[in-house]
Each structure stands twice: as structure tokens, then as C-alpha cells.
């Protein structure tokens, strides 16, 4: 099905251009396979893919299911496959895709709720599994201790990895996640490094034990796709290899 937005279409002063937006439609409760609906959407050079999808919801078909919130690459809600690669819809401008056809699909390696919305339960479970919080002995906290001081150098060791917004793009791009349902995933492994590398944390041995599993860190083969799709510059592949350096004795 192809529908065209009529807004400002014929105005000679308009700087709008037209693209075809293909949206994957699938409801696991009653559909046997994914189908695509096509819409002709007008866009400016700053228009994002999320705005185009919301245009469809506003003027053509409000039943398109999509999860979004902040619209500024902070909440990590609007991850989806855009023209074959996992990206945040709010952070991807149509003009940067250099294509007249934009295809949006739900993220791979996540169960589909409906259309573009996927379930995040497993991502949150694996994130929780690696204990994403500071662990330290209670006896460190004395009456006089109000804060744990860190040098800028100590902060640099992990600050990059604390930028993770749990959008799931890395898990969607990972080749191991594509076949292994039990793999802990690049998101959780990168977060394990974030806490292991924190000088305030004393839970290194505990976390390394959790990820030292047949479906844990050893299933990462350093393809690096997770780092290429990360919209926040977290570089999970680096974190995972540095974490493995601890386990192999290259780091202490």
C-alpha cells in the first residue's frame, strides 16, 4: 500500500523532498509473517526517521506501533533497523541515509511486541545479572566518609562506558546474539567492564565469575559490530576485550 502526504506538496516555495517510508507491520498474535506498508513522506534535511514515522501515525495510520520518548538519543527507546542497520530513529536524519527509500524494521534479536516495538526484558535481565552498581565493603563507610574520591585518570577508565542508554542496538548488531539465545550480550559485558574498571568498586571477582561462562564473555569473537552501531560512543567491543584482558591476566 502506498499513501502520500499532501502537505505543502505543490508549493513552489517548499524545500520539502519526498521519500518512500516502508514500515514493517507484524503482530505476533495473528500475523504469520512480516509485511511492509509504504508511505510517501515529505522531509526537510533535518527531519529524523522518528519524525517521519510519527507523521505516518498522525496522518495515515495511527496503529503503527513504535516506542519513543525523549527524541534526543537519551532514553534509548526508539532503536530499530533502518535501511538494514540498527540505529536510533530519533538520531538518524533521513537526509544522511542517501536513499529515496527508507525501510524501518524492528530490531533483530529481540522478540517483537508489534510492528517496530520489541521486548527489552532479556536485555534488562542480562544487564541486571552483571550487578550494575558499585559493590564495596560496608566497613569502608565510616562516620567521616561522605564520598569516594577519584582522580580524573581513574574516571577516564570507565566514564565512556557509563554513557550506555540501554537502547539495545549493540545486541541487535552482534553476530553471536544472532544465533545464541543465552549469550549475555555486548551491552551487559560492556557494563560489567564499566563497574570492574571503577576504582570505587570492589566487585571485580564477583562479576568476572558471572561472565566466565560458556555463554558469557568467551562467546564474543571481536567482530566489533556493536561498537559501530553504538549511538553514544560507548565502544562495547573495547570494553569486552579489556574485560577479557583482566580474565587472561593481561590486566590487573
Amino acid at each position, binding site marked *: 500500500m502506498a499513501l502520500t502526504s499532501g502537505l505543502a506538496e505543490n508549493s513552489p516555495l517548499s524545500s520539502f523532498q519526498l521519500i518512500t517510508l516502508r514500515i514493517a507491520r507484524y503482530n*505476533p498474535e495473528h500475523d504469520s509473517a512480516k509485511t511492509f506498508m509504504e508511505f510517501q513522506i515529505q522531509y526537510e534535511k533535518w527531519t529524523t526517521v522518528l519524525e517521519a514515522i510519527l507523521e505516518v501515525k498522525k496522518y495515515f495510520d495511527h496503529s503503527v506501533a513504535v516506542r519513543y520518548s525523549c527524541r534526543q538519543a537519551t532514553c534509548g527507546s526508539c532503536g530499530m533497523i533502518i535501511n*538494514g*542497520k540498527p540505529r536510533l530513529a530519533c538520531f538518524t536524519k533521513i537526509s544522511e541515509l542517501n536513499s529515496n527509500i527508507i525501510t524501518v524494521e*524492528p*530490531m*533483530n*534479536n*529481540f*522478540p*517483537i511486541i508489534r510492528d517496530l516495538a*520489541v521486548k527489552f526484558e532479556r536485555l534488562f535481565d542480562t544487564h541486571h545479572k552483571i550487578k550494575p552498581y558499585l559493590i564495596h565493603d560496608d566497613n569502608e563507610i565510616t562516620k567521616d566518609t561522605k564520598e569516594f574520591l577519584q582522580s580524573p585518570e581513574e574516571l*577516564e*577508565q*570507565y*566514564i*565512556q*562506558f557509563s*554513557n550506555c542508554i540501554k537502547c539495545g542496538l549493540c545486541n541487535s*548488531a552482534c*553476530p*553471536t*546474539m*544472532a*544465533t545464541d*539465545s543465552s549469550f549475555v550480550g555486548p551491552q551487559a559485558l560492556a557494563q560489567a567492564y564499566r563497574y570492574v*574498571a571503577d576504582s570505587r568498586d570492589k566487585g571485580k571477582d564477583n562479576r568476572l565469575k558471572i561472565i566466565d561462562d560458556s555463554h558469557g564473555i568467551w562467546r564474543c*569473537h*571481536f*567482530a*566489533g*559490530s556493536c*561498537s*559501530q*552501531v*553504538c*549511538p*553514544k*560512543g*560507548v*565502544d562495547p*567491543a*573495547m*570494553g569486552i*576485550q*579489556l*574485560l*577479557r*584482558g*583482566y580474565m*587472561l591476566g*593481561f*590486566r590487573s
Partner: protein
Amino acid sequence: MTNQDEHKEGIGGMINPRRYGVERVAYLLMRLSGLGLLAYFIGHIYETSTILKGQVGWNEFLELTQTNAGHAILAIVIAMCVFHTVNGIRVMLGHGGIGVGKPARPDYPYTPASQNIRHKIGIYSAIILAAIAMMYGLTVMFGE
């Protein structure tokens, strides 16, 4: 939960080398060369076991490797062996956290430090060395 329910990309997605640059190509070639070398290893054990059938059996099987197809297969094995070795050294160093960059505050457009030029050079070197070794092998085998 089935693979379809989980919306897994599956093996087709795993081996698709087109979306994520040369690192994903190296990932695929590493898997293919590993499987190829495993197949060669099994074939090699079978080949050498033919000695148990005596000199005649051994010679008969050895003749198979002296054909054009046999030479072509051996040349591919040489290429797989060289690629797997060179790229394997790169990956092993990376797995130890060596050469993957240092953590730092990321700046837009967020070029991942772990996908740095040293790794790209390592991958291209593995491919080029494999190609050179294969061509040398072909020259020796077909030049006889």
C-alpha cells in the same frame, strides 16, 4: 521460545558481511577458514590412514592430490591457513585487550577506538598475505 519468536537474525544474519565494514568480513572469513581447515584436517587424517592399506592404497590416494582439482584445493587450504594464522594473531592480541585503544570521553561522531587503523591494517595484511601465499602455491603446483 522459538527462533522466530525471539526474532533472531540466525546464521544468515551472522554471516552477512555487508553491513559492518571490513571487521565483519574478517569475522566471516575467520569462521569459513576455520571450518575449511577443520575439514582439511579430517581429510588429511583420512588420507594418511590409507597407508594402512599398503603402498598401493597410499599411492592411489596420493594421486588425487596431483590432479588440477587437488592442486586448487591445496591452494585454497594454503590461503585459509595463512589468513587464519595472521588474523588469529590479531584477534588473540585484541582478546587480551592489546591494541584496542584506551577508554576516553567519546566525542561525536564517536569513531570506535577498538576499530582502529592497526586492526584494519592487520585484516588487510591477512587477506593480502593469504592471496600471495595462494598464488605462490599455485605457481609451484601448476608450474611443475
